[in-house]
């Protein structure tokens, strides 16, 4: 146990001292502040008398010209931070010749990988917590509307989901750092996966869905709904979809369903959505959260098993 703690503190100190993270922190802060500034400028147009959660709206609102909201910004940056934390976790130690020296000390092998993982999660948590608090503070100053208790709770859930999302990307990067000997390879592999899941997965999902259920102007509502279900199912392979859907449900309490088509249908039918209580929102995104958690656990356990059974050669 004490080995784990030593590794954890050392890795955390390393993370804080490395230039990589100073740059990343600055970048994330600047971009975060910019997004919230745009949101604050435009919040008046997106809020009317009936809006119940004005403060949460600040996080969702985006500029008229720039469709760039805070959650979207986080869904781009969190993977980068996660990958930056994990891609060289094990193989850089191997390349530098530290690994065999480290593992000849009286600590269990899992202490090394667990300590690194924990230090990374703490790092992600610090980053996300600080940026959300910073943005909330700025927003409070700019719009002058204090958050309600429910909104604060929802923000905490939002932070936790974001940390989980970061943990997934980090565990994927750690997996590659165990599998590949070269840090460049593991970095590239992680970024490739990220680009694929982030950019192309929804394209591919759309392509497959429209081949299976072609949508024309004469399509029935049922067909549209089927298309939508298939499309969502496919794009949920990507963790960024899972993250996007969960964040939406948390930050937009009015959202009764994660599917925009169903929302549209509801709106056509003249239904005005009423905000859901937090417990109901959580219930909606429960599958998404479990999905993210499972993906993280799978990546981490594969790297764990691989690392524990591996022979450590000093080359």
């Amino acid at each position, binding site marked *: 146990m004490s080995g784990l703690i030593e590794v954890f503190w050392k890795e955390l100190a*390393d993370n804080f001292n490395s230039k990589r993270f100073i740059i990343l922190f600055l970048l994330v802060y600047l971009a975060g502040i910019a997004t919230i500034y745009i949101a604050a400028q435009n919040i008046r147009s997106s809020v009317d008398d009936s809006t119940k959660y004005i403060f949460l709206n600040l996080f969702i609102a985006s500029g008229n010209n720039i469709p760039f909201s805070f959650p979207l910004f986080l869904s781009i940056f969190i993977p980068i931070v996660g990958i930056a934390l994990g891609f060289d976790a094990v193989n850089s130690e191997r390349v530098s010749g530290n690994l065999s020296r480290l593992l*000849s000390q009286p600590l269990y092998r899992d202490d090394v990988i667990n300590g690194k993982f924990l230090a990374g999660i703490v790092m992600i948590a610090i980053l996300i917590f600080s940026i959300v608090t910073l943005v909330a503070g700025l927003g409070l100053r700019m719009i002058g509307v204090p958050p309600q208790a429910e909104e604060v709770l929802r923000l905490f859930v939002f932070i936790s989901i974001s940390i989980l999302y970061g943990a997934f990307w980090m565990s994927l990067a750690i997996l590659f750092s165990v599998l590949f000997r070269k840090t460049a390879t593991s970095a590239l592999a992680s970024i490739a996966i990220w680009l694929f899941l982030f950019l192309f997965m929804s394209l591919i999902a759309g392509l497959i869905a429209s081949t299976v259920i072609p949508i024309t102007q004469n399509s029935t509502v049922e067909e549209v709904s089927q298309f939508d279900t298939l499309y969502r199912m496919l794009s949920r392979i990507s963790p960024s979809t899972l993250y996007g859907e969960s964040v939406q449900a948390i930050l937009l309490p009015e959202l009764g369903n994660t599917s925009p088509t169903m929302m549209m249908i509801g709106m056509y039918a003249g239904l005005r959505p009423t905000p859901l209580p937090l417990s109901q929102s959580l219930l909606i995104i429960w599958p998404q959260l479990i999905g993210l958690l499972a993906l993280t656990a799978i990546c981490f356990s594969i790297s764990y098993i691989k690392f524990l059974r591996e022979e450590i050669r000093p080359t």
Partner: protein
Amino acid sequence: MKNNFVIETQNLTKAYGKFVAVDNLSLQIAAGEVFGLLGPNGAGKTTTILMAIGLSEPTSGLVRVNGYDPAREPIKVKKVVGYMPEKIGFYDDLTARENLEYTGRLNKLGSQEITIKINEVLESVGLQDVPNQLVGKFSHGMKQRLGIADVMIKKPKIAIFDEPTSGIDPEGTDQVLNLIKDMASQNITVLISSHQLHQIQKICTRVGIFSKGRLVASGSVDKLGRETLRKGKFNIILPIAQLTGKLRDEISKIQGIMNIETKENSTVITAEDNISKQLEEAVLSCTGLKVQMRVEEFELEDIYMQYFKEL
């Protein structure tokens, strides 16, 4: 296994698919020995070491280090074993002191103890002037010495060095070897693998020669030399050019002499046993002189070449 061997292997085998890296190795190293592992690259030295410290699992056979199985009870083994890998690496963006502190903490030393110990080991490896310099700026020789400091800080019972002198200059090599020698004098069992036969000969009490995963010979340099180069016979060098009359008779009475040969200013007597005592007495009684006998010594290099010539 109930005996005093600190490192012991029985029929130890490690195979990678069809390739057998270590083949049925049985080796015993007693406490306080300085054992040298010799052999060409790929002979299985490093693999043997890795199995001894639990970084690699044997395919079959047994290893016991300090009485424990490194695969089953790695922590108990790693507590007493200090290991310096061939390509030793440190955290380049940490200072020498910080690197050693980390090792100290991983070995559960108290913070005061760590400070004292770090000063002590840095002093003994001659790095006391650069404790706060980043290791990334260290030369290869300095890193190697820091590696020894890293082994010393955990106060090991057994120290294992894999090619500790590879790639460093003669002066650095000397420093490293002296440090290892010092460790041996502190009653630490040392296992050292190297290609540099001359250096090994200087510090090892016993050597083992590896070839293609097998231990082809082991023993002290003297014993190995006699066995391989002189077919187990002793050559005793007598610093007398001519053996005359009485002395000659006296000497030929000694049991076990096989050959007497004159070489330049001395006489070489070949015998089955070490008969230098008897020879000394014979010379003393005949001439009244106390003459120093010299048993022929061997260069490890000659022995080594002998093994690899045959293969």
